[in-house]
């Protein structure tokens, strides 16, 4: 397992993809957080409440929803890239235990997802608190809540990246896998969450978003309305379970498939 991990870490470090995705996550978060913070309390369009309120500050702090999806894309790229670039042949020649390779990929993607979460939450927190301070508002949320949202974004990104590896290994086609994940987060979870109520809280993107404190603010994608968020630990457990389940199914199917 050590060799597989070393190889996967090297793969992540020796291309620009990971850095580009971290940059993309930070840029998207900065864009959304800036728009939200700049228009907060104006009452126009999708504007969030004033940053002087707990709800407004929370919306701005948790504009990390896209970053969570970027983390999932990173996991997908890690798995599907092997087939898109035809590197899977050498990967499985050097490490014939395919389950081990997938496990190493999931662990390394989780580590990279963690960095994406850190970059996104640092960006959102800096912008939200900066705007609030510039307007002379007192801190409308306790420090503990701010730390919890940050931790949720970091852990959620890590687990979604690991789940992305499983999804990518199952679907194999990179574009199809990314479209599937976006469709799942933007459409399917909203539909299921809107109709199934409580069950919606157990869906993976919703669980990750609620961990990061995403409510129903202007930052998309949103958590379905009417869903009661799971407690932090329960949401972490759900996301971890999804990542493990997807990876296990992917390992089973990958072991049987021909690499040609």
């Amino acid at each position, binding site marked *: 397992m*050590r*060799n*597989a991990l*070393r*190889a996967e870490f*090297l*793969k992540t470090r*020796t*291309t*620009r*993809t990971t850095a580009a995705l971290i940059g993309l996550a930070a840029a998207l978060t900065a864009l959304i957080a800036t728009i939200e913070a700049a228009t907060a309390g104006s009452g126009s369009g999708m504007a969030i409440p004033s940053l002087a309120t707990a709800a407004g500050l929370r919306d701005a702090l948790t504009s990390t929803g896209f970053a969570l999806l970027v983390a999932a894309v990173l996991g997908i790229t890690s798995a599907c*890239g092997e087939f898109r*670039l*035809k*590197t*899977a*042949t*050498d*990967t*499985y*020649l*050097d*490490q*014939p*235990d395919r389950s081990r390779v997938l496990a190493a990929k999931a662990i390394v993607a989780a580590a990279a997802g963690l960095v994406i979460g850190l970059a996104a939450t640092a960006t959102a927190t800096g912008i939200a608190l900066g705007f609030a301070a510039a307007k002379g508002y007192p801190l409308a949320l306790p420090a503990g809540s701010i730390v919890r949202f940050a931790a949720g974004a970091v852990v959620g990104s890590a687990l979604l990246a690991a789940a992305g590896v499983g999804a990518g290994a199952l679907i194999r086609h990179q574009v199809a896998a990314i479209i599937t994940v976006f469709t799942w987060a933007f459409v399917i979870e909203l539909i299921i969450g809107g109709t199934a109520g409580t069950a919606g809280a157990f869906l993976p993107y919703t669980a990750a978003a609620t961990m990061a404190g995403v409510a129903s603010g202007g930052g998309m994608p949103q958590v379905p309305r009417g869903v009661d968020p799971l407690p932090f630990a329960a949401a972490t457990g759900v996301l971890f379970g999804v990542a493990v389940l997807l990876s296990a199914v992917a390992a089973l199917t990958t072991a*049987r498939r*021909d*690499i*040609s």
Partner: protein
Amino acid sequence: MRIGQETDGENGGRDERLGSVTSLGDEDVAVIEVSQLIKRFGAVTAVDELSFEIGSGVVTGFLGPNGAGKTTTLRMLLGLVRPTSGQAMIWGKRYAELGSRRPKVGALLEASGVHPGRTVRDHLRVRCAALGLPRSRVDAALEAAGMSKLAARRAGNLSLGERQRLGLAGALLGDPEVLILDEPGNGLDPAGVSWLRGFLRQLAAEGRTVLVSSHMLAEVAQTADEVIVIDGGRLISHAPVRQLLAGAREVVVVRTPKAVELREALEAEGASVQLIGADRLEIGGPTLEQVATLAAARRLPVFEIGRQAGSLEEAFLQVTSAAGRP
């Protein structure tokens, strides 16, 4: 079918090389053993009850027309494709079961399989890490494949031939005793082909067991001890190169300004004739004397006439057409 060491003795160049083979292990034990191997993709049978053995230190050319099942066989041997039935073993084990001996099997299957944004050195570092090899092997492999000067170049900027060399460098990372190469000459320019010929000779001289699939028959003829020919997934021939060449028919080559007329006359006598260029004929069947006599009888001028020994290409075409392929 086992022919293993039948090839030594007569080929002076090989004796020395085979002499060094003893360091690699027991020569009587098959290094590569394919037994009753079958692979079906739906209704298509890609490999059909294929069996052969390759002994230690033997360089074997793996030949067959496009779609013959060569790549599928090599991928089954390396654990990438699951056989429908039968076995493909290296040192008596499946590839995935080789454990710490796995790096001693080097393979080149997909030279284009590199991340375009990764440098040549980093590509090999990744493979070294996965194989559990020290980083020092990267420089050794780069040097062996003549890639040292390109170490810092991104793989996306390599030519097809350079990628092929990178693939060969990857195959050499573990200083392998067994090398399995699938069409290593693909995409190489004439200079690259010349380099590959030297490279294969060097591998042979070092006593490594090499299984190389190739359509570059001249290269195989100059390097291999034996040849396996498959077609339609089935074994057509497994023989020493010299035996296959001996079976290839000799042809008579004639240069004449009346090539078309002489061709018609020869074909009327049942010869197989190929027009090569405007004034040259390659004739299979009759002897040189019979061709000369016929040309004289028809008053057709002949400027040049001679015998040409059968090539591996000819032998290959003979065995595949005898197996029912046009």
